[in-house]
């Protein structure tokens, strides 16, 4: 483990979360905790309830049962913007950004969560864009960027809220190998240098397996396994439900863990 996860209070604690849509349980009795400064992976087949869980944590949905604690604070009933102020933010999938705004302005929208002064918001945005290597694109509209730049721009927007905990939804989808490495570097930096706790929801399993301290596996709305990547990838329950019987652990070790 790269960061001392020892005794400190968990960054996120989810207890008994349940959410039902029209009689269908999207999540049932979901409990897990995420240590401060750690990286967690959330995986599961399509329709397992990942995105419902993601949205419930963010406050898009209100849970039917259970509670959510962020950094020791109960945020179950908090509004989205107050969650954001408390340090919770996310990136959505690619289509979800402001297409007609320029990159800097998008990041500034997020920075206004921390400051009301335009100049300050601008400097926050610029600093993050420079950090992510997007400074040259700051004046471009999001719709004029390529897919990878758009991803980074959206990451920059999320970072401009100065999150303590960042949820990443399918950040790696559609990226080439080189781009994946670059993103992994960036995430590692954010995690190591800035101490941002990360939760990664992902299809590209090798990324999850190589980066995470902890992997949570969802199936049919329930958690079927939580543990280190090694534990998860050898768990019979996971293999059966998700990876298929012939899953080979070694295939996923080609990326080095950050740090």
């Amino acid at each position, binding site marked *: 483990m790269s960061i001392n996860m020892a005794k400190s209070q968990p960054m996120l604690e989810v207890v008994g979360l349940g959410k039902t849509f029209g009689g269908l349980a999207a999540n049932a009795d979901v409990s897990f905790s995420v240590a401060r400064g750690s990286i967690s992976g959330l995986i599961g087949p*399509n*329709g397992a309830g990942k995105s419902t869980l993601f949205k419930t944590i963010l406050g898009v949905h209100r849970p039917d049962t259970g509670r959510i604690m962020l950094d020791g604070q109960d945020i179950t009933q908090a509004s989205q913007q107050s969650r954001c102020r408390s340090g919770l933010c996310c990136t959505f999938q690619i289509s979800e950004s402001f297409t007609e705004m320029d990159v800097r302005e998008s990041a500034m929208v997020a920075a206004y969560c921390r400051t009301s002064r335009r100049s300050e918001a601008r400097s926050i945005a610029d600093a993050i864009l420079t950090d992510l290597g997007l400074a040259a694109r700051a004046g471009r509209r999001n719709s*004029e960027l390529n*897919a990878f730049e758009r991803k980074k721009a959206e990451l920059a927007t999320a970072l401009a809220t100065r999150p303590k905990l960042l949820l990443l939804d399918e950040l790696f*989808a*559609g990226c080439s190998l080189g781009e994946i490495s670059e993103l992994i570097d960036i995430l590692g930096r954010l995690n190591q240098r800035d101490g941002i706790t990360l939760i990664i929801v992902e*299809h*590209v399993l090798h990324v999850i397996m190589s980066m995470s301290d902890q992997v949570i596996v969802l199936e049919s709305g329930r958690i079927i396994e939580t543990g280190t990547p090694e534990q998860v990838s050898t768990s019979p329950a996971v293999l059966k439900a998700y990876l298929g019987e012939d899953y080979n652990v070694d295939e996923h070790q080609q990326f080095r863990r950050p740090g």
Partner: protein
Amino acid sequence: MLMSINNLDARVERLPVLKGVSLEVEEGRITVIVGANGSGKSTLLRTIVGLNPASGGSIRFKGEEIQNRPAYEIAALGISLVPEGRRLFSEMTVSENLEMGAYLCRHDKAKVRANLDRVYELFPVLKEHRDRKAKTFSGGQQQMITLGRGLMSSPKLLMIDELSLGLAPKVISEILEKIVVLNKQGMSIYLVEQNVKQALRIADYGYVLDNGRVAMKGTAHALLNDENVQKTYLGL
């Protein structure tokens, strides 16, 4: 050669997604395209059927250039796409869904009848519940409806996008078996899949798409056993 694609470029919302894709689909075979999420697989299919414009290159179907023609014309040529995410006419019954699938041969009642029998034979469960609304079925059964719907126009080429999406492994195997049966009956099939291993096992020939380009191609058997392919691309 049933279909050959040459140097195809395509954009989605101004972003280049396909960058010079060339591939071929042979008659009577199962051809598979695999690749990671976002590598351009679905865009390739959408471009072939005319739902997404091609910005360069050519698509030939039975020798005829078909790129950038409207989707309904391409369908009339005998290309049937089973779209990603099933896209059923959810408020309509099974038989109505199948009737829509037979839109192109709606004037040939005998043919519709024959196709319907064939679909019901392939998926008996559909015949049993033909008057139920499509949205009330389970994921696997819905996938059967879309497959059946795609067959109703007696296409020359059946293209299937992400067959396994959101299905339990057991169900996937079941449906893949049906695909093999179809292929044995002479149907040319063009499959786009994320579930690489299962797909390659039933296929004749395969392409690996990476970041909008064809990264590898070969017989399914060779791809399955190629260590490099396994490591780099097929690790789910």
